[in-house]
């Protein structure tokens, strides 16, 4: 299809793009972020980009192998539950921070106590507010006290909870950490140009942890908001790796054959949330189970996945991501059946359908396709694309009848990171189902995996039966990089620089 101007241009340049412009020669990997990262301090951003940097700059106490999902020690070498709310950890010795500060129990205690204190305003409260405090036993032994029994603690400690140097952090605080981050991780920060440009350098004195030693000497990350510009730079040879590439483009790049396109699933799940509790008005059609079921039947999840999301996305029927602990899969499924949907609507008293506001905050293309399915069965949508915060605001006030939402669970591989966030009668809970609440309370706080599993399953089944949501699909993400880069992306939507190398 090289008959056309732009197509020709792209094809012509990609032929020569392979070697000449790659940066293996100066050992620098050039990466693009799409979004301006608010703060590099990992407790003060909630962005995917932040997670990427966090994994490069800092270490957690524990490490979960992204492939096997096994927990191994990182900054801690071993851990043990002393009681339901106390976890004791032995720390690795001989580790030092990038600024030379040695790592020991003081750092853990300071970090945990700082972030667990709500007054310090860590934005990712959910990741840290299960911890009550930390206590130093000796230089290399600490205890972490949880507020309540919290079985997911190990998962959080191997994920978002990273260890900061106590002296440095006390001195510079989150702002200083955001502009000149110091950690123990495989990469040191050379420069931070807030939101715009980050340069990392391999930590040559990285400890012998589970992440392994960094191979690529320098990572140069620029923020380029426009996807076309990113592609232009990639084709130009001035970028080596881009990620979160939309599936259509990724498909075409793959067809060109000059770049490695790697598709991996993520934990992000797309779903429709419906106002079953009638918060947006008691006469809201979605308070009727038949309407909610009709919505579920109206969606062709398979086609959405095949045609739009592609890659490793799968249709989803539960209010959680399948790999998450407790995410039972044997719940009621609603097959694509527009006729049945129409029939259900008629039964519910809407033979001619009805009109509703339909909100979304991202992936306009998907939202549009979904709206189109709803339109097809007679639910006329007044499409409203809002900024996340604006939609969230409306959501919390209970003014959203139906919306297209997504949730990424912070890559936490536990159902509590998703279903428990939305069905425990919080401000975002549009179901307000006491039965579900009771089950989730048990599941979230039990230390017995079997009990947890059972009650998550009960809750999820109830959610599916009541069709509170219309879960639709899981997301995937595409990584595109030059063939000089060797990297195997993982399913958790995190770029791991320390696992990359030059071919």
């Amino acid at each position, binding site marked *: 299809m090289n008959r056309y101007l732009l197509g020709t241009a792209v094809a012509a340049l990609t032929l020569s793009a392979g070697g000449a412009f790659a940066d293996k020669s100066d050992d620098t990997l050039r990466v693009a972020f799409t979004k301006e990262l608010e703060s590099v301090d990992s407790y003060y951003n909630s*962005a995917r980009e932040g997670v990427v940097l966090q994994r490069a700059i800092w270490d957690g106490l524990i490490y979960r192998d992204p492939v096997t999902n096994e927990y191994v020690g990182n900054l801690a070498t071993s851990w043990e539950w002393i009681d339901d709310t106390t976890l004791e950890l032995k720390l690795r010795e001989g580790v030092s921070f990038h600024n030379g500060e040695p790592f020991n129990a003081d750092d853990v205690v300071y970090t945990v106590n700082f972030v667990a204190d709500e007054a310090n*305003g860590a934005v990712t409260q959910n990741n840290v507010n299960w911890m009550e405090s930390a206590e130093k036993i000796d230089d290399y032994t600490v205890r972490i006290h949880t507020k309540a029994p919290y079985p997911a603690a190990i998962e959080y400690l191997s994920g978002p909870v990273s260890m900061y140097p106590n002296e440095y952090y006390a001195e510079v605080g989150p702002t200083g950490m955001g502009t000149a981050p110091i950690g123990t991780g495989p990469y040191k920060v050379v420069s931070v140009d807030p*939101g715009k440009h980050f340069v990392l350098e391999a930590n040559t004195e990285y400890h012998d942890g589970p992440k392994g030693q960094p191979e690529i000497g320098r990572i140069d990350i620029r923020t380029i908001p426009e996807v076309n*510009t990113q592609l232009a730079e990639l084709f130009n040879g*001035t970028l080596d790796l881009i990620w979160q590439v939309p599936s259509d483009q990724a498909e075409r790049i793959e067809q060109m054959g000059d770049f490695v396109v790697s598709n991996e699933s993520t934990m992000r799940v797309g779903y429709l949330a419906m106002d079953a509790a009638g918060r947006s008005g008691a006469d809201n059609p979605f308070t009727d189970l038949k309407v909610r079921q009709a919505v579920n039947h109206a969606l062709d999840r398979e086609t959405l996945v095949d045609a739009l999301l592609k890659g490793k996305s799968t249709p989803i029927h539960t209010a959680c991501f399948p790999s998450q602990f407790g995410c039972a899969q044997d719940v009621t499924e609603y097959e694509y059946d527009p006729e049945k949907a129409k029939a259900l609507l008629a039964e519910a008293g809407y033979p001619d359908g009805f009109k509703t506001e339909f909100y979304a905050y991202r992936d306009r293309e998907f939202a549009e396709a979904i709206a189109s399915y709803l339109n097809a069965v007679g639910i006329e949508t007044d499409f409203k694309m809002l900024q996340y915060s604006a939609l*969230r605001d409306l959501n*919390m006030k209970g003014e959203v009848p139906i919306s297209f939402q997504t949730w990424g669970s912070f890559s936490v591989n536990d159902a509590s990171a998703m279903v428990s966030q939305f069905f425990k009668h919080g401000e*975002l809970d549009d179901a307000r189902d006491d039965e579900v609440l009771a089950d989730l309370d048990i599941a979230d706080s039990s230390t017995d995996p079997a009990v947890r599993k059972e009650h998550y399953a009960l809750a999820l089944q109830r959610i599916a039966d009541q069709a509170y949501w219309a879960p639709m699909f899981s997301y995937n993400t595409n990584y595109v990089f030059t063939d000089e880069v060797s990297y195997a992306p993982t399913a958790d939507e995190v770029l791991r620089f320390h696992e990359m190398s030059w071919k």
Partner: protein
Amino acid sequence: MLRFILRRLGLAVLVALTVSFISFSLLFLSGDPAIAIAGEGANENDIAAIRKLYGFDRPMLLQYWDWLSSALRFDFGESYYFRLPVADLIADRLSVTMILGVCGISFALLLAVPLGVLAAIRPNSIIDRVALFLSVAGQAMPSFWFGLILIVVFSINLRWLPASGAESWRHFILPTIVLGYYAMPAIMRLTRAGMLEVLSADYVRTARAKGAPEGLVLFKHALRNAIIPVVSLAAVQMGFMLGGSIVVESIFALHGAGYLAWESIGRNDLPTVQALILVFSLFYIVFTFLADVLNAWLDPRMRSS
């Protein structure tokens, strides 16, 4: 003269205050900033904590007064998003925007003024038609489209110029062309119209009757007078460019103030948006003031007492 300047300054302050108040009220309605600060993953406890911490539960006028009184001390608070002082953040981003704005307006002027003059000298000639076409096309060309085309041609195809970033002067060429071309038509038209009018003015005929050569007539006698409204327009355009370069900055990944403002709106980063709107309106006010001064210098009628 002094009273004039004082009155003018007073008016400028009033305009700036009004703009800032309007935008503050507007943004106040734009949803709960606590949610924005908390970020996408936060739950309601996080948000409630933040709301209290920042005092978003107080009445709007009180919040505006707080903002205003610290703004007068050049303290615009801390960005909710970046957690950096807004003043520093803007100072950092403004340099790119300023460079872009100056380059853009220079490009526009360098293209528009000669074209406008030539078109006016020979109305309905080929040059006039070309100039008219360029300007009509410029007015109808969506700048995002133009920018992407330039990237395809000059960065991807020809590889002459970088597609994004702000590292060297070469990075600014494409954005300058896009931004400048956007401002060009209005300036070109005004120059042309002004020159046409001036060229038929009596004093130009006087100059010719003195035996002045055509170059002198055009540039000393005509252009000097025709350029006066162009100066005002350029100042206004420059003011708009600084705030209106959002699309260009986003396409060329120039992290300037316009892009920052856009992103900050999306992030509900109120202190940043608020400060930026004030800064942009101040720019407009300052530029129009400078244009007035420049005009007074160009046009003695304005400075007489």
